[in-house]
């Protein structure tokens, strides 16, 4: 697959970087050729984002050199990278919610006319770029804060494209996309590839890596383990390189049929502005999977149960007792925990330590003196269990890699020992090794008697983990499927191609 041009677009040699004396990258080499998709994989904290930030002028390397089309360059500022034709879609959210789509897309490069910002040109160009990626529903004048996560991701992509980049870096671009939007991104990547653009692609989803890339570099603990042609690689070898050990990822054993306990959470015709009346029963000891497309009401359901946008009609029962949950605080006190899908946006106190963040929920509802020592020990154990890689539990959480931040939030809610656990995309952005650990943990919680509701867009995960699967569509339950249902059955219900005979909506 590799195009035979011996002059790489981007060549990195011996790149090293340390933060506060901690070595994060060490002697990393990487070549990117025109028209090539070069995937970069590795565990959370392996240094992928850091390497990408060096290539885009955000960080300065301590050692090593960068060459663009054979010429040595230094990139002292993101602006210099842009001028050199390097665009990047960061792992973190990189838009201003208060500004319009067009203002965001052209931020830093506003088109001028007689020295003044040319709004008309800006809007026209943005509309063109949006149309170019097949997105016509977004108006350039819309405030970004009004868009959904997926649409915001499209704006990020368009923003990087607006540069006319020769090198495009994508750091986990699909982390917030739904299945059909991923397809859109695939098409986009292929089109850019044909235009001779070199693409550096970071992802934890191996399917994407194998679908898109021609070459793969594996990082582990800041060092390059290997670089190989995708054609020569298999998922197993890749995982072995990443994790450093054999990893056969089987999902943990499901609950024995009929072993689920009493009903923990019951919804009777419960609805609100976003949800048509829902009937649902969640038993202690089971993992109930919720499938459906983005916007089908999956997250709205979790948010309603957790009291963020509570139910307006119908009834909710906890252990058989009717409850009214009007705020997250009440939910937490009632023993409900919610791991949101937007963990970056909703969950972190960025300048506090790992430990403080992990203890946040408990401290919020329990008095400070309450079982303090025990609390800290449990949390430490949990942080270990989900494999958080940090310099220590005292480190400020902002310096953790994206995936490790998510693990801390996970630990925070697990520490609550909740009766009902709501997971929204629990393993998004989490590396393969830790994924298995999290799956085990979820199952263990269910075995200990918790009732788990798990939303997931990753069909293998949804099917592999769930004892039952409820599929949502248009704010209502489209149907229910038993354990081990096929991917086709789930998608059929989610898209409306099939209707369930078991529980009609």
């Amino acid at each position, binding site marked *: 697959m590799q195009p035979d041009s011996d002059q790489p677009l981007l060549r990195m040699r011996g790149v090293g970087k340390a933060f506060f004396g901690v070595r994060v990258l060490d002697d990393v080499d990487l070549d990117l050729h025109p028209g090539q998709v070069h995937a970069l994989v590795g565990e959370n904290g392996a240094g992928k984002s850091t390497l990408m930030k060096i290539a885009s002028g*955000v960080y300065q390397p301590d050692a090593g050199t960068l060459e663009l089309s054979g010429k040595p360059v230094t990139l002292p*500022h*993101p*602006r210099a990278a*842009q001028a050199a034709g390097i665009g*990047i879609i*960061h792992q973190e*959210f*990189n*838009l*201003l*919610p*208060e*500004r*319009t789509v067009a*203002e965001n897309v052209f*931020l*830093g*490069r*506003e088109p*001028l006319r007689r*020295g*003044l*910002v040319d709004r008309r040109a800006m809007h026209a160009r943005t509309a063109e770029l949006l149309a170019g990626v097949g997105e016509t*529903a*977004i*108006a350039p*004048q*819309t*405030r970004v*804060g*009004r868009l*959904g*996560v997926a649409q915001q991701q499209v704006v990020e992509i368009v*923003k990087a494209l607006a540069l006319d980049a020769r090198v495009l870096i994508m750091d986990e671009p699909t982390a917030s996309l739904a299945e059909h939007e991923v397809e859109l991104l695939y098409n986009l990547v292929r089109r850019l590839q044909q235009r001779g653009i070199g693409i550096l692609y970071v992802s934890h989803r191996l399917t994407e890596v194998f679908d898109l890339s021609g070459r793969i570099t594996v990082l582990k603990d800041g060092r390059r383990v290997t670089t190989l042609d995708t054609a020569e690689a298999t998922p197993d070898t890749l995982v072995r390189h990443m994790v450093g050990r054999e990893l056969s990822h089987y999902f943990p054993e499901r609950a024995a049929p009929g072993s689920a306990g009493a009903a923990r959470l019951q919804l009777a015709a419960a609805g609100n502005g*976003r949800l048509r009346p829902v009937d649902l029963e969640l038993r202690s000891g089971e993992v109930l999977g919720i499938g459906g497309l983005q916007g089908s*009401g999956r*997250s*709205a359901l979790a*948010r309603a149960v957790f009291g*963020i*946008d509570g139910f307006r009609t119908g009834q909710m029962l906890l252990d058989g007792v009717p409850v009214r949950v009007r705020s997250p605080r009440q939910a937490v006190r009632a023993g409900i925990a919610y791991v949101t899908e*937007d963990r970056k946006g*909703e969950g972190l106190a960025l300048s506090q330590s790992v430990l403080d963040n992990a203890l946040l929920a408990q401290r919020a509802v329990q008095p400070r003196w309450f079982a303090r020592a025990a609390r800290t020990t449990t949390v430490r154990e949990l942080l270990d269990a989900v494999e958080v890689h940090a310099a220590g539990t005292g480190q400020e959480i902002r310096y953790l890699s994206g995936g490790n931040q998510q693990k801390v939030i996970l630990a925070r809610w697990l520490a609550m020992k909740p009766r009902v656990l709501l997971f929204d995309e629990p393993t998004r952005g989490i590396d393969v090794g830790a994924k298995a650990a999290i799956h085990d943990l979820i199952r263990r919680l269910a075995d200990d008697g918790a009732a788990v509701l798990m939303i997931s867009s990753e069909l293998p995960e949804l099917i592999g983990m769930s004892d039952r699967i409820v599929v949502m569509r248009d704010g209502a339950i489209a149907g229910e499927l038993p354990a081990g249902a096929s991917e086709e059955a789930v998608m059929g219900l989610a898209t409306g191609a099939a209707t369930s005979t078991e529980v009609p909506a």
Partner: protein
Amino acid sequence: MSTETLRARLRLPGLDATNGVWPALAVALIVGGTLVALDGGSLFSESSTISLLQRAAGLGIVAVGQTIAILAGSLDLSVAYVISLTSLVAAETMAGSDGMVLPAILLVLVVSAVIGLVNGLLITKLRINAFIATLGVGLLIKGYLEQGYAGPAGSVPVSFQHLGYDRLGPVPLSFLLFAAVAAAVWFTLRSTRYGHHLIATGGDLDVARLSGVRTDRVLIRTHVICSLCAGIAGLYLASRLGAGAPRVGAEGGYDLESIAAVVLGGTVLAGGRGGVTGTVGGVLLLAVIDGVFNQLEVDSFFKQMVRGVVIVAAVAVYALRLRRTSDRRKAAVA
């Protein structure tokens, strides 16, 4: 999406986040006007209108500068001392002579620009928190003023006093100056690259930087402009007083008042959201409240209390509204 487009198209410049201040101003005018009328006076007589606009002008010019500092995610606590200092620089340089008016104006602009530059450099290069940096610079100037001056100094020629006292109909020249400064800054925010970069920097420094904005330069420039506004206000006060006054800025409370006006106008203290139009409303609102109390001859303790209540109420209303929109945004995502 089409209604969204329509709304975006119809949106009036700057009135989006700041419209709350205008109803408040209307209420203040009606309630205040009635109270003053019951007391046997008139809030809308020519003389009280003039003094109201005049009061607004000085604070307004400073507040416009403060607006962009806050929009950029920063803040300037040195403005009050810059005002005092520049009033002295102006009056002492002019020393009563017509020929020195122009050099004095230029000198004032240079002095205030340099102070803004120092503020900006401290904040960006030495990474000192804006609150501390500008407070420090302010105290430095204060020290210099207390050392060097016991009372008013210098004198302003009559020709320059036109700025403080002339009118176009009922509208004081100084108010027109305020309007011009506000309009210039409004236009800058809306239509220049610098303006866009400023709002982006205040909205999220990291996002702006990662998008290629040279955030340091933006912040430095913003502090220079903010300081220049304070210098212009110093010129105006010198022309009103006929001399330079070492305590005019601090006694007028221009630092906190200007921040209050900005916040009343709906600009978010954290930056990135708001605008100059709102600040104009905030300045007028404060001036009206002042005018009403002056006419009613209420004691100043009570006056301060009412202002405090108004400001806290305004911030609470804005915070509430902000939370609602962000809730709605999150719900839309679900």
